[in-house]
């Protein structure tokens, strides 16, 4: 898998911490592998919206990657509840269902961006940089600029 320049938290230079929410173990593993190529760290995982809310409180991640179609509580509702409690939460919806109504509903209810599955790592990388803005720094490769 392609390796990307590491994304580090601007405030302390530590890896960006992710909460990965998807009812598919396969999808969670895939996303975890992708964010590791960004130099990130998976702080927590959840398989449904309810668990995502408690995992957010427990892990306080820098960013959430959230599926939409899930059992018990769907991703858009979970995103809304998380943002209600944590207005600073950065949530990126990651779903195979990418039609306009879904995207608009997610953005209106607190998500910051949307990425359609199958996830292209280069797209997700740019979205994460955009969503985290000044809170993330692209680490220079060792020896760069020497």
């Amino acid at each position, binding site marked *: *898998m392609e390796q990307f320049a590491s994304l580090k938290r601007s405030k302390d230079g530590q890896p960006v911490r992710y909460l990965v929410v998807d*009812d*598919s*173990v*396969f*999808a969670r*593993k*895939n996303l975890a*592998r992708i964010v590791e190529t960004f130099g990130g760290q998976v702080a927590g995982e959840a398989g449904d919206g309810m668990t995502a809310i408690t995992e957010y409180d427990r892990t306080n991640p820098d960013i959430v990657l959230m599926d939409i*179609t*899930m*059992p018990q509580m769907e991703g858009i509702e979970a995103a809304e509840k998380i943002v209600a409690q944590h207005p600073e939460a950065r949530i990126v919806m990651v*779903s*195979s*269902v*990418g*039609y*306009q*109504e879904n995207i608009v509903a997610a953005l209106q209810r607190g998500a910051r961006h949307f990425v*359609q*599955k*199958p996830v*292209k790592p280069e797209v997700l990388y740019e979205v994460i940089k955009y969503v985290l803005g000044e809170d993330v720094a692209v680490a220079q490769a060792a020896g760069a600029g020497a």
Partner: protein
Amino acid sequence: MKMELIQPFINAADAVLAQGLQTPMSIGNLSMEQEAYRRKGVAAVVAITGDIEGRIVFDLDPETALRVASFFAGAELPASDDLVKETVCELANQVTGNAVTTLNDQGFHFRVHPPALHTSEHGPTNTEDTEALVICCETARGNVFMNIALRYNVRLPGDLAAAAAGE
């Protein structure tokens, strides 16, 4: 079943399988199936409800499912690994989600349900309304069968216009 319903699934399967498996995909056999569905191996079913209703079954023979799951995992998996079933479910989810996105842009509205493992040997008998189209997607890692049974739940704008014109 009209081709306008099927083409988005073919396009989505091409996009998802070609990108995920990093190998070209081609369409092999296309056939209509009016008899009850018979499972070939590891299968996942995705239900959709709304303007169009029905279900899509993704079915891979056990060897292909293992090869595909191992490729995605980046390591050889044992046949008993749950990740094999998870992989088939997620592929079904991604192809259906992408197809539904296209159909939604064409004005159809519906809801996609989470994928479920199809464990029984047979499915329900298809009716005239829900006869299934079976599409064989050929890849270098094996064949992926899509069994699509959908029906319109609302009349299409074109049909209404034709009816109003007395055709």
